[in-house]
């Protein structure tokens, strides 16, 4: 037995390219039953929102902008959850034991997950727009009015950007908390609890009301949905994004790189 030839490790072999990792991460989002339905829920939620608008909105009020807004609200929940699960399932389902041994560069895996989530987010929003456009045509026909196309291309892009930023908030919570339930709860706290607290503060304290747009990311990203931000509003997205997105994500990625995978 001691006569066996020594085994050498080939260090010149090509590593795993990022493009391949992105493909793998995209596939992981679809190849479980829950993941598949979560993806399908993008289209389902968009369709339900569209039908609800056709049923409940006044025929005269129908416009593409209304549909885009109506679809955007549920989308702001579904997309971050997709981003959260793509990260946290490696820990909650413990698949990280395989993922991080096949690719021992965690930064590449995290980058691939972020890119895959952004691809899904943009594609999901485009699908939602298409459904909304069909709803606008169909709804207007039912109401007997001409379809109104009142949303500019720029605004359509900023709405996608707003959703991608929301998705990145989910991603950040994923790398920070690394637990599916915890990160999803964290996202609801971020998007429902924190705005009311900050809103109350702004209501009761004058000095905070002036400060709020600069530090409240939820608040700062609202103009993205509504016609596009002004120069100052972009700056506010920048400063509040630094606080809520850039700094926590940097810390979360650092924690992922350092943590023990069990």
């Amino acid at each position, binding site marked *: *037995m*001691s*006569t*066996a*030839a*020594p*085994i*050498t*490790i*080939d*260090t*010149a*072999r*090509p*590593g*795993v390219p990022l493009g*391949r*990792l992105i*493909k*793998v991460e995209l*596939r*992981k989002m679809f*190849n*479980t*039953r*829950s*993941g598949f339905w979560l993806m399908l829920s993008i289209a389902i939620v968009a369709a339900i929102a569209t039908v609800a608008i056709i049923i409940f909105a006044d025929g005269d009020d129908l416009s593409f902008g209304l549909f885009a807004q109506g679809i955007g609200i549920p989308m702001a929940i579904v997309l971050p959850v997709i981003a959260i699960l793509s990260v946290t*399932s490696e820990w909650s*389902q*413990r*698949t*990280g*034991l*395989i993922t*991080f*041994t*096949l*690719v*021992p*560069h965690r930064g590449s895996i995290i980058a691939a997950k972020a890119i895959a989530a952004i691809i899904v987010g943009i594609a999901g929003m485009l699908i939602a727009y298409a459904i909304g456009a069909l709803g606008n045509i169909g709804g207007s026909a039912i109401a007997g009015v001409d379809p109104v196309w009142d949303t500019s291309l720029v605004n359509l892009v900023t709405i996608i950007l707003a959703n991608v930023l929301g998705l990145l908030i989910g991603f950040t919570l994923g790398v920070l908390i690394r637990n599916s339930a915890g990160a999803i709860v964290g996202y609801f706290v971020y998007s429902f609890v924190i705005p009311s607290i900050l809103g109350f503060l702004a209501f009761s304290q004058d000095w905070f009301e002036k400060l709020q747009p600069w530090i409240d990311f939820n608040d700062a990203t609202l103009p993205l949905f509504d016609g596009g931000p002004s120069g100052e509003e972009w700056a506010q997205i920048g400063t509040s994004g630094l606080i809520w997105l850039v700094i926590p994500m940097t810390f979360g990625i650092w924690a992922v790189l*350092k943590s*023990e*995978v*069990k």
Partner: protein
Amino acid sequence: MITVDRLTKTYGGYRAVDDVSFECRPGAVTGFLGPNGAGKSTTMRIIAGLTPATSGSALVSGVNYPDIPNPGTQIGVLLDASAQHAGRTGREILALSALTMGLPMSRVDEMLQLVSLTPSESKRRVKNYSLGMRQRLGIANALLGDPKILILDEPANGLDPAGIHWMRGLLREYANRGGTVLLSSHLLHEIEVIADEIIVIGNGKIVAEGTKAELLQTAGTFVKAGDPSALANALTSAGLTSAPSGDGGLRTEADPATVGKAAAAAGVALVELRPAEGAGLEEMFLQLTAETQRETITPEGAGA
């Protein structure tokens, strides 16, 4: 070849792995034996780059694991067969690994066949798998990239006797072709069946290592009488030291002929008298386990 050198991992004040050094040679199956919580899995996770070591090093053929390009094609790792996404099919799990490594999908079918998972089983979701099926899937996953080195944590756990026999054949052939295998188990029996070399670890420290033949061969005798206390007295009066072993038996360093004469001289009727092969390892292992065991121990026959 795996070289672990003075590896230590501490969690706060607790030393999970304490100055561990060993080597796994090509062409041999090295068994890593120790009770639950002895530090086997931590050591393996450190080798695979998942857990940072506090001090010391673990190298694979002289290379740090994270520096191995496309490591799945050079070293196969199974750290926990249950660590799979419950909602994925077995086939899909292998497909993801194959895609990551850049392997053709035909490799997935080959591996499923190798570990005897049928096409219909491979299309079931892992939450419906038995532990034995998960182990087979995990081994398929480790072998997917045709690596020359295998690291398997508790691979025989959950396998039935036929499955353990199958794994022995698989790993034996793999080692005969020149591969290096490091596998862990908390069961002496599994390690005895599968491994050529054995490293025994307890409380983070290596307590014994050597070839199976070396460790299992111990001079001594296992003896059992209808009246254990009479036998113990007989041995003591003959000047032989003995220790309880197995249920009601005794083990002594003397050879069976001496023990037999001592018993005959005292008129003690024996029910069993034989060389205590392997008993040394088993007793050492039981002692190790005793410290972490919650119940009192009723050891099985020491001869194993």
